[in-house]
């Protein structure tokens, strides 16, 4: 075996894996963002707010707790990008897009569930993020984050 071949393979295999995970991950991400937009446009008629009391002019006929949750994990590529950020600092935009997708997806799931049950608005909305598995740098466990959207769904007489 040529002398350069062995280091080339040892470094090349993770690099090839990186590029493959980038290609797959970014295709999935683009598709997800597209679908998020479509669903957001479809459900934009439903008011979603953080106010704790319904506005005075609303005639509320029923209410219920609604939730929507998403668990997301990193891919190899995003972990690599974020790892480089450990050296230099700065915006970890690889994580920003991931969490943005998770927040929007969680809100949409909450709204869609409320809509299916006949509710017209959700107030007192909160977003919570919690780590559900330790960071997987050493290959133990998978780094995962849950984003939970919750609120009070209202039935309105009108």
């Amino acid at each position, binding site marked *: 075996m040529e002398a350069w071949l062995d*280091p080339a393979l*040892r470094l090349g295999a993770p*690099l090839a894996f990186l590029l493959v995970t980038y290609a797959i991950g970014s295709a999935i991400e683009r598709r997800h963002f597209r679908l998020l937009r479509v669903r957001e446009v479809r459900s934009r008629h439903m008011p979603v707010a953080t106010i704790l009391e319904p506005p*005075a002019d609303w005639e509320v006929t029923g209410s219920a707790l609604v939730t929507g949750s998403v668990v997301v994990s990193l891919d190899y590529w995003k*972990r690599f*990008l974020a790892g*480089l950020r450990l*050296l230099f600092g700065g915006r970890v935009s690889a994580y920003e897009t991931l969490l943005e997708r998770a927040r929007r997806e969680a809100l949409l799931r909450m709204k869609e569930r409320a809509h299916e049950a006949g509710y017209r608005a959700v107030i007192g909305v909160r977003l919570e993020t919690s780590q559900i598995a330790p960071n997987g740098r050493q290959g133990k466990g998978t780094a995962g984050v849950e984003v939970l959207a919750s609120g009070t769904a209202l039935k309105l007489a009108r």
Partner: protein
Amino acid sequence: MTFDPRLPHEDGGAPRAHPLAEAAWLVAGAAVAGVLLTALAIGVADVASRWLPATVEARLFGGAFAPEGDHPRAPAARDVLARLAAHWPENPYAFRLSVTDLDAPNAFALPGGLVVVTRGLLEQVESENELAFVLGHEIGHFAGRDHLQALGRALVLSLGLQALLGFAGVDADVPAVASRLAERGYGRGQERAADRFGLALVAAEYGHVAGADAFFARLPDAEARFGRRAAAWFATHPVTATRIERLRAHAAERGWRADGPLTPLRGAGSAETSGTSGDGPEWGHRPGTGKRSHQASTSARSASRAPASSRRDSAS
């Protein structure tokens, strides 16, 4: 109360660079930082390896590495090694020799004064003089502190790569990569200096340098016989016609006799030893100069300084 049915911001409200562009900048930055750090660390490793006293080296590595493997010819080889080392006045090492069970002929200098030779080498040398030059060459690496430099660089490269790739979360087999990179061999200057040092020891021991390069002259045969595995020698030691020519020219320059009786190597083995250098390759002739061991050993002393000056051209 009216609600403004706005859609959420895309991109979290802040535009971001293309991920590949971001990665390219980060990797380039890491590469620049890595190169600078590695260059600094290699400098530190080189200086440290030159100044690490042999006594400390022996304490650090005395018991490390291979146990003494054996071969019928090993006692004779140890004897040759001891006799050659006696011609190096400043020798701080208590040399040990161990045999490793490989077909490919090769020899290595390891920290702590351990010379490792392969079984293939012991079986393929046809006279004591041939073996003496190979062992003298390895002693030359000790004299130039080349063996420590290679180890220090491997260590430093390993640490540097580990820090960079580890941070980035890439699971590469870092120590293996680093040692592969570092074992690309010694620099050409180091090899040349070790050759001269070894040749001076041979001249001092035998009073002539006949047979010293016979082993290299035969190597292409060995490669044909053992296939690609014998190429291991080529990977760590340059064997070229130029090298042999340079050795002969150096011997002629120093006035070392190119002919003389070859000493048979003790111990069971298939190789036959011949009485004179008549059937071996000829060294460059400078008849009648008749320099003897006293001068040869002073040359060994001056050659020991050579690696220090030529160490710089060994960027690996």
